[in-house]
């Protein structure tokens, strides 16, 4: 039997079209069609100034928008050859790790829903809402944050935010323990996930897997460890890996990573220096408002930056960060004008989803649904 799933289906978490050839319930062949959410991110970037691209990056992996913001501005900052202040680095680390936590909460929560465990979803989404409240307080938006700017941040943290963040973090372990208790040794969960849609270490490397899906195959590659940026090497945290490469292993890796991310956030909060959040260069970051309204130089710099944008020197660089799904790379090319000549994004999902037909060969439809959730394919990032 031939069966068409999607593109719009609750279990696809986005717009993915899967076409399967079945023998009874067993998948003999699978074909994928992607592109339903293609919004020409790369083309649009070429028609905007460097800072105007940031809102577009929110819509890549919209489950953890902060990480895309950070990944993109890091690439532009590399091109400009600047380093952002320590305080900004710490705040970016905090935002990235909180985003990783919510991304993993969504991945595990929805994965559990797909196999019929609704309770975990509610436990996790309560925590996710709390973290979204934190995001809302810093930038006014919950999902599409656009929080970073080239050379700094939109704003510094509001008063009392760090204490609030600690309170949210203090609540998190309870939910993690609850869900761990509900799932990790649960007979049904194990039956539904262990040995489901496995991928070998060799194939995972060959397909370009990164992130939790790769670490679930026993490869300890994490950009934060291998090429530390923003002092990730100074924080005390460990890499989570599993050997089996199946859906259960991916669940364990994500669960473990959330606890590690919490450790990083706590350390970053403890060691948050004072100072400005933007670089002191008016050709990159906007001047303070009292300067804009009170001095001609400030007004001119503001006008120039808004109208003409930042002008990085001509050149091309590749910058990469560890996003929730794996290595998020930005290859940016400047020709010295105020607009990018080219922005290429390397979305981790693209590599992972390509392996999906191979992983589901010989499995049942219900296994494929469980596997899809564990790969955490985000269509916004896949299709760009």
């Amino acid at each position, binding site marked *: 039997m031939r069966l068409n799933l999607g593109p719009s289906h609750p279990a696809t978490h986005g717009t993915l079209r899967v076409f399967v050839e079945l023998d009874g319930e067993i998948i003999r062949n699978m074909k994928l069609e992607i592109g339903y959410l293609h919004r020409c991110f790369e083309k649009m970037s070429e028609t905007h100034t460097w800072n105007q691209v940031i809102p577009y990056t929110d819509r890549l992996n919209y489950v953890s928008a902060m990480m895309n913001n950070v990944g993109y501005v890091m690439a532009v900052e590399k091109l400009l050859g600047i380093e952002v202040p320590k305080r900004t680095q710490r705040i970016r680390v905090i935002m990235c790790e909180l985003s990783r936590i919510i991304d993993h909460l969504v991945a595990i929560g929805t994965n559990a829903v797909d196999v019929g465990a609704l309770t975990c979803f509610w436990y996790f989404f309560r925590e996710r809402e709390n973290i979204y409240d934190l995001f809302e307080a810093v930038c006014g938006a919950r999902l599409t944050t656009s929080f970073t700017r080239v050379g700094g941040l939109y704003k510094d943290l509001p008063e009392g935010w760090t204490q609030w963040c600690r309170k949210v973090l203090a609540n998190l372990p309870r939910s993690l323990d609850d869900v761990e208790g509900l799932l990790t040794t649960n007979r049904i969960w194990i039956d539904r996930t262990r040995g489901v849609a496995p991928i070998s270490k060799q194939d995972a490397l*060959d397909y370009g897997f990164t992130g939790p899906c790769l670490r679930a195959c026993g490869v300890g590659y994490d950009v934060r460890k*291998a090429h530390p940026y923003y002092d990730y090497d100074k924080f005390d945290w460990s890499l989570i890996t599993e050997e089996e490469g199946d859906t259960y292993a991916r669940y364990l890796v994500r669960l473990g990573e959330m606890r590690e991310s919490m450790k990083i956030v706590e350390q970053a909060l403890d060691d948050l220096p004072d100072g400005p959040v933007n670089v002191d260069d008016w050709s990159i970051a906007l001047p303070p408002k009292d300067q804009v309204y009170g001095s001609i130089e400030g007004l001119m710099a503001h006008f120039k930056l808004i109208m003409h944008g930042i002008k990085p020197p001509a050149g091309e660089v*590749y910058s990469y960060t560890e996003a929730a799904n794996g290595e998020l*790379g930005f290859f940016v090319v400047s020709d010295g004008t105020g607009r990018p000549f080219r922005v290429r994004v390397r979305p981790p999902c*693209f590599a992972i989803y390509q392996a999906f037909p191979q992983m589901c060969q010989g499995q049942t439809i219900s296994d494929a649904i469980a596997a899809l959730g564990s790969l955490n394919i985000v269509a916004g990032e896949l299709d760009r």
Partner: protein
Amino acid sequence: MQETGTKLAESKCPELIEAFPQAVLSVDDYLGDLSISVRASEIRPIVRFLKETPSQCYEFLMDLFGMDYEGYERETPGRFAVIYGFYSHSRKTRLRLKVFLPKNEIDSIHDIYKAANWLEREAWDMFGIQFKGHPNLKRILCHHEFKGHPLRKDFPSNNYQRLRTALPSTEL
């Protein structure tokens, strides 16, 4: 190989130069990103060398994408290029291969790295670059009836095409 960058090349990638003295055209190390420009005709042996030689051991093909240098500020050897991003997990090194295309076509490497299959389709979709030997070189992100290759510099960004037919399952 050009005189400029010879020293750099010898210090950064001696094995590659030794194995392919004629194919390596130039080497660049801008801001720590090692980028090597090679001849399009040699791409398959070079990629195989990078993956399979123990001294190289690039397990990952992280990225593969097209570039259109039309109107770029600096002079380039051609308009279209394909850029390959390799990463070696065991050696923790990165390498970028840049290949300018004399005839807008290049050999596919889908059988060397499985990751290349979709990435090559995307480069075809966006730039119209032909990958010879690719088993299924069809559009991947754009609609199957879409006209043009949108990331080319001469493609207007406000081009709007009204397309609504779903792709028949036989053509997936």
